[in-house]
């Protein structure tokens, strides 16, 4: 029987997946296994972590060591695992709510410490699993289940947030640019230090129906495309003109010492 050659990276007894038709999180799963395949990533050495939410399910489908189910606490798990076994590749799959709301402080501290993990933020701009409520990433003026007259709150720019906090690799792409996203994921996985890749994804079921005005996944992807800017395009616009737009690109790529515990005690000297 012919199967997709990438299927060997998936956990058979977790399939079929639970994503809605046209969900962007499933595309991110696809991008990740393509990136892993191109890097020849050893899945025996991979720990994939998800919290709670739609994107948090991605590790459940990966045939690696997978952790799933504590909302917003992916980074505390990752911190412990990295301190226990620094040689492991730890990849976090997080929704925008998991990363920016429930686990917001963990995100800032992990970036500050330059924890050596890869964090993939699947940003669908809403709390999709619970019915499409407003999230800290939801644009102003947008309708959600809990902002039926339009969102009044100012959204987070997660990339700017972690950049300011000290992340050493920061990148944002969308489901419109598979190759760019895969390229950024490959760099992020190989990067030594805190690497965050935000991928803007369509949520046809909730964000699409309420905010975009269509449950059609294509309309969701088109909406993201219309509101996307390259960093160069954005440079020519005022702050006001950039509101409600996704600025895309690889923003940060630098080296810095990685987190190896808080104490000055040197184990190699202690031995």
């Amino acid at each position, binding site marked *: 029987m012919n199967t997709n050659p990438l299927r060997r990276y998936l*956990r058979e*007894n*977790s399939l079929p997946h639970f994503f809605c038709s046209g969900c962007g999180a499933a595309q991110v799963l696809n991008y990740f296994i393509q990136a892993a395949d191109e890097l020849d990533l050893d*899945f*025996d*050495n991979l*720990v994939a972590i998800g919290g709670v939410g739609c994107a948090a399910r991605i590790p*459940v489908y990966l*045939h*690696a*060591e*997978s*952790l*799933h*189910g*504590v909302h917003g606490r992916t980074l505390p798990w990752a911190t412990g*695992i990295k301190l*226990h*076994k620094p*040689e*492991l590749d730890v990849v976090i799959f997080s929704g925008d709510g998991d990363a920016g709301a429930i686990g917001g402080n963990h995100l800032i501290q992990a970036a500050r410490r330059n924890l050596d993990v890869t964090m993939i933020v699947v940003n669908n701009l809403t709390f999709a699993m619970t019915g499409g409520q407003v999230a800290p990433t939801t644009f102003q003026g947008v309708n959600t289940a809990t902002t039926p007259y339009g969102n009044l709150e100012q959204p987070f720019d997660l990339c700017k947030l972690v950049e300011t906090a000290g992340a050493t690799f920061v990148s944002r792409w969308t489901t419109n640019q598979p190759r760019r996203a895969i390229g950024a994921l490959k760099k992020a996985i190989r990067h030594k230090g805190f690497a965050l890749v935000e991928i803007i994804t369509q949520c046809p079921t909730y964000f699409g129906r309420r905010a975009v005005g269509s449950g059609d996944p294509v309309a969701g992807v088109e909406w993201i495309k219309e509101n996307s800017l390259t960093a160069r395009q954005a440079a020519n616009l005022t702050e006001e003109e950039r509101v409600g737009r996704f600025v895309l690109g690889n923003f940060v790529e630098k080296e810095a010492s990685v987190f190896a515990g808080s104490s000055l005690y040197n184990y190699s000297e202690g031995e």
Partner: protein
Amino acid sequence: MPDFGDGYRILHSLNPHDEMGSIHWDPDVFEDLYDRITGKIINNVDDIVKTERFFLDDAEVGLIAYGSECRPAREAAELARAQDIKAGLLKLDTVWPVPERQIADLAEQCSLILAVEMNIGKYAGEIERVIGGRCQVKRVTKNRGLVHTPGEILDAIGEAIA
């Protein structure tokens, strides 16, 4: 349990899952999972529960306390004994699972039990439930952010037996 990176590629999920780790929102899976998890407590109550008995061998008045209240309660029992009141203390090191056997045994032995707490009586209801009317239970509570003094508990014993 194997360590991360040992190559077993285990799925650790907090959702209802079967023996293989696969997530299933199935009532049978859910029930089996929770029977196993709750069974860790229910089937091992005697190993988990810890209590300490002070002056209880011949006690007729039993004090039950936990936490900081145990010290003044123990001293109150000593002061009561100096007045020929046979008092003792059951100190609960474990409050949950409830030390039902230990509390019930005390009810068989004592004619009066005092539930001593530094709140409006959070645990007294549990004690009353376990004793189920087998002996008299009085609540000795103090909700002022301060522990009882031994004298206050001694007074409460005096009032209860008067």
